[in-house]
């Protein structure tokens, strides 16, 4: 094959040099294209964030700088029938923690158990975990009304939102956890542990789980990020979490600096979380090597 091509090309020895020049020219054009694309999209992604950050530092006079809005995060209270800002920040952070914890306790053991002992349920579990992607939150919330009426008899706290947040976060957590679980030979590991006399509890907690920390960390991050940004369900079930609070403040006091400083703070928080987790993941991988 190679011989035939080279035979076919021999008569074209003179012009055959041109492709090199064409390659170089194309490479230059491609690079130009890439830099233009990266600049344009980079600006598109960065500018709104910068604008929000700048606005959160806006003073009373247009164009002046001030950190008032950032100070207000702790003390802001608009008294328009909505709770103080900081209390909803607390509630939302607590929700993130509770949702993550419930998610782990509910999904991780079940997933490992299905992988090891009940494989015929694996497809069902995957289907159910990914199902929330096709049932939009705005649809789910309509059907949740009657269920949350019952929950409201037990407790009116916005913390009760965690019940449904676990379901919302399931697709993302499932994918992260599945990646973690698939990265090892769980069956062989568990057979080895069992043959050495380990109980199933030991197999799951001390053999499988330590091998999927990366997946678990990712699932935690995605779950927390989702809870920090959730609006639809809380808003329509009349609970006040951070996003609903920001929305309400913006309705009462348009362009209040505090909504921008809080938004930026929440974003920075999520970003730091992400960095920490990716750093932790890399650190552990380094140690394992």
């Amino acid at each position, binding site marked *: 094959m190679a011989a035939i091509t080279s035979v076919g090309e021999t008569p074209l020895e003179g012009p055959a040099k041109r492709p090199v020049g064409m390659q170089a020219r194309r490479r230059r054009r491609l690079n130009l294209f890439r830099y233009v694309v990266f600049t344009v999209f980079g600006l598109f992604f960065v500018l709104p964030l910068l604008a929000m950050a700048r606005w959160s530092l806006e003073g009373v006079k247009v164009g002046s700088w001030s950190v008032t809005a950032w100070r207000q995060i702790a003390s802001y209270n608009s008294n328009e029938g909505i709770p103080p800002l900081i209390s909803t920040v607390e509630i939302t952070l607590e929700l993130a923690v509770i949702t993550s914890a419930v998610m782990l306790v509910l999904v991780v053991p079940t997933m490992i158990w299905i992988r090891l002992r009940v494989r015929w349920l694996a497809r069902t579990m995957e289907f159910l975990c990914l199902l929330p992607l096709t049932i939009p939150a705005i649809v789910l919330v309509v059907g949740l009304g009657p269920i949350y009426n019952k929950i409201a008899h037990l407790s009116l706290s916005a913390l009760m939102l965690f019940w449904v947040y676990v379901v919302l976060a399931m697709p993302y957590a499932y994918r992260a956890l599945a990646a973690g679980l698939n990265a090892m030979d769980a069956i062989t590991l568990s057979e080895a542990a069992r043959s050495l006399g380990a109980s199933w509890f030991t197999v799951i907690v001390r053999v499988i789980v330590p091998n999927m920390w990366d997946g678990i960390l990712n699932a935690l991050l995605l779950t927390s990020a989702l809870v920090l940004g959730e609006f639809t369900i809380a808003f329509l079930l009349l609970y006040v979490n951070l996003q609903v609070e*920001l929305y309400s403040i913006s309705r009462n006091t348009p362009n209040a600096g505090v909504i921008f400083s809080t938004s930026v703070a929440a974003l920075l928080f999520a970003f730091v979380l992400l960095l920490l987790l990716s750093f932790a993941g890399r650190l552990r991988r380094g140690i394992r090597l």
Partner: protein
Amino acid sequence: MAVAATTRTGVRPSRAGRRPSVPSWIGTVPFFGYVGIFLLLPTGIVVWDAFKNPAGKFTLSGLTALGNAQVRGFFIGSFKLSLISALVGAVGGAILAYAIASGNPDGVIRRLYLSASGVLAQFGGVTLAFAFLVLLGPAGLLLHASWYYSFPWGITLIYAYFQIPLMVLVFLPAIDGLRIQWREASESLGSSAWQYWRYVGGPLLLPAFLGALLLLFANALSAFATIQAWEDQIAYTVPQQISTSMSSEVGLANINYADALALGMVVLVAIVMTGYALMQRRAARWLR
């Protein structure tokens, strides 16, 4: 696998006399129970109540309401916004993904854009609407765009902010799957760049592209927080109208209407996502 299973069950009776006959699927009951109550039950309630009137009697009036002109308007609005923002996101995201893929696979730019895409694809909602409000809105820092509040263009631009990163995440593996040898092969046969894309690269990427387009469409269809924070006075889309009918003062009389709208959305999203799954399967044939 089957052998391992039988060995295990074969060994057990000698040791497991203390707990006979507890089938192993019992361990999965908490999970399936939870999903049943908080995912399947609400969905079932939506479907069930869509066929009832406020008095609890069976009726098709909720569904026939889906046919009237006003309701159709919301579905058309949703459709328009989803389609346009999916197209903008898909084309923009494909260009960006190509630019990323044609660079160094371990480079800083690639890693930066990929991790940023992972974050931004999830970054919708109230905060996003705020960010664009201060950039382009009535008091915008960059410009006071007169079209900021126009439907669907103003909101399409905002949606592009999470659609483009989502496209990058979904489409980049497909572009990475294009082998350099295919390009070389077509060039050694004398094809131009245009011919390569027309007859080789394009057809290979098309299923992945269409699949991603459908995913973006479904993504925009289900979005509510962003558009609610952008404009809460006028309902353009189905999610906004569901929200209005759930939270209005006469909400009780309207809940079955909300159910019918929600059912309409479920059907629409299910169709789109089925198409997505089919396209993914088609795309996977070449790109592995």
